């Protein structure tokens, strides 16, 4: 299907600087892709911006929640005066303005109420602000129907993204030094040295991804787990506590209930850690002081990585990060890790 799509001269002018990076074929595939974005808070806004600018075919913004004061920290797609209005609807106008060539829709229903076959309308599903239970369900549906699945969230200084691309085939540029025999033959030695150059070959590769549940239910108490643990980013466990909070209270930690939410997070931590085979004090409860609202620069970093992974997945160009990216704004680390297989 993608092969039949032609890029117009207008599109070539608009996308010039990125076509020079990933090529026309990748741009054609992007142009054919239909994306569902669940959750329009700070991270969702960054992802929407990045993939709409890149030139996908269509984007559906799905969110049943309303704009709050906290959105002012990072949600640049909703007008400030829209507090109390639906997030997806409020975002629609500015998303569309980013690129008139992309078909953008808003859906104000609750993702939890969507039947399984709703997701079959998309090539990519990117879920933010969802509970673990919901993420597991959507991941399974996507895996069963070969839909590329992404999840991500930002809590204050912390953020992550996850990808399950199933069995994924992609093209990768490999550079080799080109030996130039014919042309360089007559050159004196001094000139010859300068002629050596890199030649790019396109190589076809594939990767197999694991389900989200395998990562979140991984037992770190085993010998194998303990060995892996040393090199696993701590942010992963912080995120698990935060997701557990959402599971338990059916909401995110919020600044308006700052003190009690902080306490709840500290109390939750040992139980979450023990359940996956870790010591109850494996991570310091300090994180609960810096995980409120969504920091704009953190959304930009996680949303930048997540947006690029979506672009890679649909354009089938370049090796995807398998299968997590974690950003920790306190220690400044940005790590890719393979967890769950």
């Amino acid at each position, binding site marked *: 299907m993608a092969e039949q799509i032609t890029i117009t001269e207008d599109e070539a002018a608009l996308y010039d600087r*990125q076509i020079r*990076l990933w090529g026309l074929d990748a741009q054609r595939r992007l142009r054919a892709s239909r994306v569902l974005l669940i959750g329009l808070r700070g991270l969702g806004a960054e992802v929407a911006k990045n993939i709409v*600018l890149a030139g996908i075919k269509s984007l559906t913004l799905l969110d049943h929640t309303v704009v709050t004061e906290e959105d002012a920290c990072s949600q640049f797609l909703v007008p400030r005066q829209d507090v109390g209005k639906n997030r997806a609807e409020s975002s629609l106008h500015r998303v569309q303005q980013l690129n008139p060539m992309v078909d953008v829709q808003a859906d104000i229903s609750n993702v939890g109420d969507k039947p399984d076959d709703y997701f079959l309308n998309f090539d990519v599903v990117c879920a933010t602000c969802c509970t673990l239970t919901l993420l597991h369900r959507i991941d399974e549906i996507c895996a069963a129907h070969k839909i590329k699945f992404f999840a991500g969230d930002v809590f204050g200084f912390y953020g992550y993204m996850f990808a399950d691309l199933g069995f994924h085939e992609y093209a990768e540029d490999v550079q080799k030094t080109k030996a130039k025999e014919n042309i360089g033959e007559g050159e004196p030695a001094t000139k010859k040295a300068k002629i050596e150059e890199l030649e790019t070959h396109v190589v076809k590769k594939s990767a197999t991804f694991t389900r989200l549940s395998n990562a979140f239910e991984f037992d770190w108490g085993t010998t194998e787990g303990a060995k892996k643990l040393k090199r696993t980013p701590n942010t992963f466990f912080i995120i698990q506590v935060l997701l557990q909070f959402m599971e338990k209270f059916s909401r995110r930690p919020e600044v308006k209930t*700052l003190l009690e939410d902080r306490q709840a997070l500290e109390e939750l931590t040992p139980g979450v850690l023990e359940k996956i085979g870790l010591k109850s004090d494996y991570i310091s409860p300090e994180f609960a002081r810096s995980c409120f609202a969504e920091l*704009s620069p953190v959304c930009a970093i996680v949303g930048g*990585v997540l947006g690029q992974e979506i672009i890679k997945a649909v354009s089938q160009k370049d090796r995807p990060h398998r299968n997590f990216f974690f950003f920790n704004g306190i220690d400044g680390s940005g790590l890719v890790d393979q967890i769950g297989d």
Partner: protein
Amino acid sequence: MAASIFGVFDEVTQNKIISSKVLVVGAGGIGCELLKNLVLSGFPDIEIIDLDTIDVSNLNRQFLFRKEHVGKSKAQVAKESALHFNPDAKITAYHDSIMSSDYDLEFFKKFDLVMNALDNRVARNHVNRMCLAADKPLIESGTAGYLGQVSVIKKTVTECYECQPQAAQKTFPGCTIRNTPSEPIHCIVWAKHLFNQLFGEDDPDQDVSPDTADPELAGEAGKAALESEAKADAAGGIKRKSTQAWAMETGYNAEKLFNKFFRDDIKYLLSMEALWKKRKPPVPLDWNNLPQDVPATTHQVAICDQRLWSVQECADVFAKSLSSLKEELIKQGEGGMLVWDKDDDPAMDFVTSAANIRAHIFGIPSKTRFDVKSMAGNIIPAIATTNAIIAGLIVMEGLKVLREEFDKCKAVFLNRQPNSRKKLLVPCQLEKPNPKCYVCAPKPEVTVILNTHKITVKVLEEKIIKGGLGMVAPDVEIDDGKGTILISSEEGETEENTEKFLEQFGINNGVRLKCDDFLQNYNLTIIIYHRDKLEEDKEFQIIGDVSEIQAKYLEDKENEDKQPNGLTEKQATEAATAVEDEDEVMLVEEEEIQQITVSKKRKHDEEPEVVNGDTVKKQRLISDVAEHYDDIIS
């Protein structure tokens, strides 16, 4: 706004943000993203400056701009769009160059933090100096495709932007361009030079005619050609006057120009027989007898710029672009000239056609207009995601700077793939200032090697002091006890000096020149090092570190004592190894980033793919040693 909501930041950070005043230099790819992050984080007082206007090719990433904004001021539109995100922020926009004297020391002193979101080295050097002079912390950044970097510069604490020598722009030997091209890029550079010769400023460094001074023609082999040079001059009568004057006389006649550059000049090149002993000789083309058997791309290509042209098509485009460019030049009136611009269609058509015709002559593969544009325009591909990540990292470093935690500040690199320690973002320790830096050292000194009999005051001012050493309006006096003024920043004051050679002022080996740039609040002593002949026929050479020149001098001495090519096998091997270990330096100017150093050596160690800014290789190595597995991961 994060800083106005209690509980998002710690109290110290919150107060620092609320009371801050910051400057963003550049409203392009990084600048747009950065401005968004700053207003959302709650920075209350932001000034942004950019001299550029909006182009359609910006819209795929500079998300504060839309189609209806094309042609308008970037800084102004960025301000208006960002105010929608936070109407309470105070944003001041300047549609201007940061290098203008309006932005003096007092201007820079207003800010708590300066953030560069620039795309060229000249402006980066200037802001670096202004921030050093005003003692304000600076965050430097850049992106290129999937790669990017951020680093922090603080006077006396870290390296400044100019502490390490900056890689020179990639150049090609004149004789390769003029006589023996072997790559498409050689033909493209030649075609750009031809454009300037025909329509632009006359630059003797951009001669396009055959070069009889090619070192390969030394001795007997070049004799025939040298003899025929006189004949050619007499016959054509072309070389004696300027190419532009001659082309003007012909009315930019396509046939005459074509036959001169692609037939007669090539025939002349063929007469330099030594060049073609081992090379495939070029084949001259005649306007009236163009090969018709060279096929263009016949199959359907989505974008017409990605189609290859036949020789006939090239000739047609050559003729058409010549006549458009002639019109443009005439419109400018007496003394007018054109400046080559990749976004000007006739200029781009001209270079594409001329480069491909020359490529055909030399049996070099031709290139599409799309590819020629990348190469001729030094286009750095740019995407929204990389800019977003880098702009996010700038703010993360900025928070540490506001808290004055300079020991915690890092240079951070965004890689394409995680390294073996899982890092996609690679933080590196900041280097200490280079005590011999000719910019940030307490008493900056620099050595310039040149021939005092051949360098005029004008060349010293324009190419060395402004071009090479980055001053804007220098005053220069000779440190001869009398304080003889050589160059004055007051217009006209030292005009009579400009065409004189340095030696006429008694400037010879070891003489010190005191340079002062009032705007940059920068004093630099230049030590002149006279040599009759420089390596690779360079006009001059700037050496930051004096010990380097002593080493160089000794080396030269040794070489002089040797037979040419008299290296022992061991020495030759060592030399070859040294080249291998040397960073392969590629410099890309213009859009988005000023310079990328891809380290060959790096490929062998843990960072599989890295873009480095100028200074970074050492920093990264240090951080690799300093950091231990466990303290990065946990």
